[in-house]
């Protein structure tokens, strides 16, 4: 039996790096320190997985060889006039690099899951900027922690324990020294732990932020209620924010997926910026998938833009709403879709994704997804952080090494290698 320590958990953006894993006969038999989601992945990942490349013939997905699959995909990519490559939040940075090179080579749009998680936050950042920090800063200093439209107890179960409310830092001794505020439309598991729970009217985040910002400028609010909250309570929250020593807001998709979208982030960042007149205040998006941050980082350093990058004209162009997958799919503009480790059919609106089925749809994924079920060709891939190594970025931009602890099933390659083979094949076809 082999015992591994300091293993990264390849599930959520917390990217906990203290997991201990026991491996026996190439199989994980014990996991320590992981949350329920992490443990479920470590223990179950090998159960429901694809073992063979599949190709749709006469309407049915049937096994085929890897070469056949790569050849088919590559030929279609060369032919496509507006292909989309989508995914990468569950991949390594090294794989993303190859994905970008492939997109550049064939003139594709390349987008990642940011577009439907924190894309609006990024757009807000691009208007205002963002006052932020690494998670350890929060651990050492924060005395006011606000979760706004985010529910880490469900989505990032160890966030409290490792980074925010509970850890003992240099200047704070854990929960007793911190105040927890939760702003949400539902009484989530996180909200139930709050010292101050603010049930905000659905879709009124922007109004509450505007009111707080006006209060910080010592303006009076000419309304009895804001976002369903009595004015006095809003004033109380503003005072709490202004008078803390070190505050931080962790915001989630409650803000980014609600009406207002990019402007919610925009106004929230402005609020936090303004608070720095009075005290130290920071803001951080709680990112979902374990390497969605990395896919932004790599795309940004190679093309200048974090997601939704259109390379069809030989140079990078970016404008969410134009170059993002939901919009391209909805308008029916792409004539090929290559999905890498994502499940758009499960998670994007059907009114958008139904169009991609009119054209070739290819999926690279370790396990069967809805998208894989509906694809023309499916190539199974290795799990990063379990069967393959690589780099991933935590939600605060700290890069960490994903490790290989078991061998993938025979013939199963990581995304990086599959994409490289496709890229080589594409170059070969175009060279002819």
């Amino acid at each position: 039996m082999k015992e591994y320590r300091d293993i990264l958990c390849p599930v959520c953006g917390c990217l906990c790096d203290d997991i201990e894993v026991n491996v026996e006969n190439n199989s994980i038999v014990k996991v320590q320190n992981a949350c329920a989601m992490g443990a479920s992945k470590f223990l179950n990942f090998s159960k429901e997985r694809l073992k063979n490349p599949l190709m749709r013939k006469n309407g049915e997905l049937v096994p085929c060889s890897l070469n056949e699959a790569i050849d088919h995909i590559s030929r279609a990519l060369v032919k496509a006039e507006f292909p989309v490559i989508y995914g990468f939040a569950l991949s390594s940075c090294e794989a993303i690099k190859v994905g970008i090179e492939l997109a550049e080579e064939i003139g594709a749009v390349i987008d990642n899951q940011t577009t439907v998680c924190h894309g609006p936050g990024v757009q807000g950042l691009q208007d205002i900027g963002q006052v932020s920090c690494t998670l350890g800063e929060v651990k050492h200093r924060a005395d006011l922690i606000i979760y706004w439209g985010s529910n880490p107890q469900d989505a990032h179960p160890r966030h409290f324990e490792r980074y925010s409310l509970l850890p003992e830092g240099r200047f704070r001794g854990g929960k007793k020294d911190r105040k927890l505020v939760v702003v949400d439309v539902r009484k989530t598991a996180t909200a139930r732990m709050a010292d101050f729970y603010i049930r905000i009217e659905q879709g009124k985040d922007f109004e509450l932020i505007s009111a707080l910002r006006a209060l910080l400028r010592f303006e009076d609010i000419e309304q009895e209620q804001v976002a369903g909250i009595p004015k006095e309570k809003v004033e109380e929250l503003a005072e709490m924010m202004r008078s803390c020593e070190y505050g931080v807001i962790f915001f989630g998709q409650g803000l980014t997926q609600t009406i207002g979208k990019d402007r919610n982030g925009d106004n929230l960042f402005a609020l936090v910026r303004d608070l720095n007149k009075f005290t130290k205040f920071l803001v951080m998006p709680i990112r979902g998938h374990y390497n969605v941050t990395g896919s932004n980082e790599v795309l940004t350093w190679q093309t200048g833009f974090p997601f939704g990058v259109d390379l069809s004209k030989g140079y990078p162009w970016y404008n969410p709403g134009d170059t993002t997958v939901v919009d391209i799919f909805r308008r029916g503009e792409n004539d090929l879709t290559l999905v890498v480790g994502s499940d758009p059919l499960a998670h994007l609106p059907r009114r958008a994704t139904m169009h991609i089925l009119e054209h070739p749809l290819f999926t690279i994924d370790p396990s069967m997804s809805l998208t894989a079920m509906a694809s023309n060709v499916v190539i199974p891939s290795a799990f990063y952080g379990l069967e393959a190594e690589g780099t991933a970025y935590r939600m605060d931009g700290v890069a960490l090494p994903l490790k290989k602890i078991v061998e993938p099933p025979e013939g199963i390659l990581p995304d990086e290698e599959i994409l490289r083979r496709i890229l080589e094949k594409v170059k070969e076809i175009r060279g002819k």
Partner: protein
Amino acid sequence: MREIKLSLKEPFIPPLDCSVINTDNFYQNSLEEIKALKIWRGNREVSLEDVFSIHEENISEQGDIKIYIEGDLSKARRIGQGMSFGEIIIKGNYGLYLGAHMKGGKITVYGDCGSWVGVEMEGGFIEVKGNVGDYLASSYRGTTKGMKGGTILVNGNCGVEACGWMSGGIVKVMGNSGIFPGIHMKGGIIYVKGDCAGRAGANMIAGRVIINGKVDDILPSFKIEEVRGSVKVGDEKIEGPFYVFVGDLSDEGDGRLFVHVNNNPHLKKYEEYIP
């Protein structure tokens, strides 16, 4: 006067980048040269002629240039980009970035348009007979410079964030507006004849947002200043009375938000705050 007519040969799947279709560009070129201009269909560069049948008519010494375009152009982008004179007439629905960075001349669309109509426009006149999408007369991401000058008239509705970061010019929307008309506005005027879905004037620093129809609510970061009988939009006088709000106070703004009194009885509660 040169009149050049383009009609779409057949529908297409990928987006079509038509930035070469503008009056300045056509004016300098012969018909044959125009036919050979390159446009992007998805990731392919094709000739204009591959996509449109192109005719030139009615050449006279007087006037400059008119371009007529017809067909379903809902996947076309960037027609009239940067143009400074002449006229473009589009018959059919149209896609994104109409008249981007336009400096002068006129564009008329008989149909609906997508988003970013008149993005970063500097001058000229755009009229859309149907509805327009989001980010009308606005800016690109990260750019804090929206429309600077010129006039846009939309006969139908507009989507969200019309006139974002606008600093000059006039925009009239005869139908309804989505949320955030005049967001981050620094100057200029937007007039919405119909209803507004909310958050009018958010983060505005200066300029005027005028809503003639119904508004559900006013942002808490605005305060009422007065009731005014009428307001001017260019040389047009719009009869009120209007509630006049100042904001956005969260950005120390001094913009003016006009909301019609008669169509918004639920805002009567604000009258007690009038100084």
